[in-house]
């Protein structure tokens, strides 16, 4: 395999693996920017993956090629609704946000596997018939080097992911809504004084994170695993949290971090077939995203600072 062929293989595959991480990590950015820690992203992805696969299996004959989009929409709604549990517990009932997130993870997995066993009478679903497929973008794919690298094997969901990242950046940094969101996460009391409804902003942010987490799960299941079982989402949600932190709670940063982790995942899975890479034990590539995130937090790779009020419930009138 020449160096170019290697790149033409690694980069598209890395983007494939990065796509679900991008959606979910940006969901995390919304939630944390509003001051609610969301450890439950893993559970939200699991719910999204299950709903996506379920809708895909049941309605593939009705919707044909549009099935994947219907399934993703269903996952977005399911993720949004499921995240309301986290919102109610951690915003209204002042539960410890980390504990509530852990409960979301346990509940998401338990409910999904319970439903699979109830509906299909076995531990995993069949393979879906309509999966997210790659395609070549006309004209762009003929550009030398960049064409085969970026435009020959494209997934429509990857394009959507980039659009969501840029859209999230615009919303968070260029709109009044985004300013309020950040204010609520940095200094809720000041925001409240200025008339911003702190709890309402937080509810919206958590539901957005649930919707994007659900989308991430559905994309992962429909493009990579193609079925659903208890092990479909194994750590993707936590890796998305890592991408969010490594990207310093910024949508574009999260996008970059997710792409980088996508490369690491590709190399750890397919590295044995690639010269030079096969010399590196897979375990180093597997732990790379997590170790790098710890380094980033420790300040070895720039300083990563969480939003100030992240993790604390806002209680009116308390100083």
């Amino acid at each position, binding site marked *: 395999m020449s160096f170019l062929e290697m790149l033409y293989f690694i980069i598209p595959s890395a983007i494939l693996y990065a796509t679900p991480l991008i959606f979910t990590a940006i969901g995390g950015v919304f939630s944390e920017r509003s001051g609610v820690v969301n450890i439950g992203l893993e559970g939200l992805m699991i719910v999204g993956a299950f709903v996506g696969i379920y809708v895909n299996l049941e309605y593939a004959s009705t919707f044909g090629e549009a099935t994947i989009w219907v399934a993703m929409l269903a996952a977005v709604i399911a993720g949004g609704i499921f995240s309301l549990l986290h919102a109610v517990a951690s915003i209204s009932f002042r539960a410890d946000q980390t*504990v509530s997130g852990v*409960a*979301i993870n346990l*509940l998401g997995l*338990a409910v999904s596997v319970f439903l699979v066993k109830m509906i299909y009478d076995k531990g995993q679903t069949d393979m879906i018939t309509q999966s997210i497929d790659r395609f070549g973008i006309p004209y762009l794919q003929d550009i030398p080097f960049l064409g085969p690298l970026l435009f020959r094997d494209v997934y429509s969901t990857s394009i959507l992911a980039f659009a969501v990242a840029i859209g999230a950046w615009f919303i968070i940094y260029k709109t009044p809504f985004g300013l309020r969101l950040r204010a609520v996460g940095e200094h809720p009391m000041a925001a409240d004084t200025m008339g911003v409804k702190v709890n309402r902003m937080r509810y919206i942010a958590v539901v957005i994170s649930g919707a994007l987490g659900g989308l991430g799960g559905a994309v992962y299941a429909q493009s990579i695993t193609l079925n659903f079982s208890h092990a479909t989402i194994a750590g993707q949600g936590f890796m998305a949290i890592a991408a969010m932190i490594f990207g310093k709670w910024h949508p574009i940063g999260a996008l970059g971090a997710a792409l980088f982790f996508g490369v690491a995942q590709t190399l750890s899975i397919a590295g044995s077939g690639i010269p030079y890479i096969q010399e590196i034990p*897979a375990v180093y590539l597997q*732990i790379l995203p997590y170790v790098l*995130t710890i380094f980033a937090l420790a300040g070895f790779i720039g300083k990563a600072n*969480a939003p100030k009020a992240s993790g604390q419930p806002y209680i009116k009138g308390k100083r």
Partner: protein
Amino acid sequence: MSNRVINILVPIISIIIGLIVGAIVMLVSGYDPVQGYMALWTGIFGDSYSIGNTIRQITPYILAGLAVAFAFRTGLFNIGVEGQLILGWLAAAWVGYAFELPKVIHLPLALLAAAAAGAFWAFIAGFLKAKFKVHEVIATIMLNYTALYIANAVISKLSDGGFKTERIHESASLRSPFLRELTDNSSLHYGIIVALLMVVVMWFILEKTTRGYELKAVGFNKNAAEYAGMSVNKNIILAMTISGMFAGLGGAMEALGTFGNASIKPGFTGIGFDGIAVALLGANTPLGVVFGASLFGSLKYGALNMPNAAGIPEEIVSIIIALIIFFVASGYIIRVGLQKLSKKKEGQ
């Protein structure tokens, strides 16, 4: 109603609501909740074999619960029990088969190795928090996956590409023919004694030593503790290390008692995360942890009987456990409800 009564009522009410919601879920899904809970009950207490295995299941839950509770008491959230437990499991299994020693040395050595492995892994998180202000929740989450992949790679290396280590020698085993016979060939082992001993150790450290007083003081108010001349950083690192020690021993229970080896895991064991539920339900006290672990350990083991006896997927119990965590965590709202209720009664 006094605060003390409310503190005890909150977990009890949470358990009851959890079980009721579980019944509703079964009903809506077309299963018979009465049959389901009967199957659960027989799965836990049906015969001496079930009771033996239930106690075996409770053992690592006690240690995982102690790990989380100890950290909580000192103002830290150790969500990394899972990773510390996995490394403790591996260390105990390795010492168990790699050395040949008399039992009086071998078994304590294997337990010690597990405790040390767990303690070291938690120490990293404590060190990062003390020196670099890295939040321990994020650090331990990242360390969980790091531990999982490292343990899998080491097991693969130790077994020359296989998926599990050799069996531990009899001299390092916690198993006992006596307990086995007593419980009709269940896999009950002496680990429960180690776990209960650690309950006493946690109580002793926190309530009877100066160091424990300092650890709690730092948990209550960092600034006040520092003003009183205590080293906050030292206490943070120590608290995490002790917490990890309990978690590592939890892994040893699986290595030396239940399984007798360490095998490659596709994902987490779940014991570490359930430990959070145990600690929460037990209000982070040593005795409370025993109750919490008994409840969740029994539910988890009894659930295995549900698919066969009632045709209900065992995940229903995981749903109930997750719901109980939600309710306990939302204790604020239950407290408000209880206080309103008692005020109304006083008014009458």
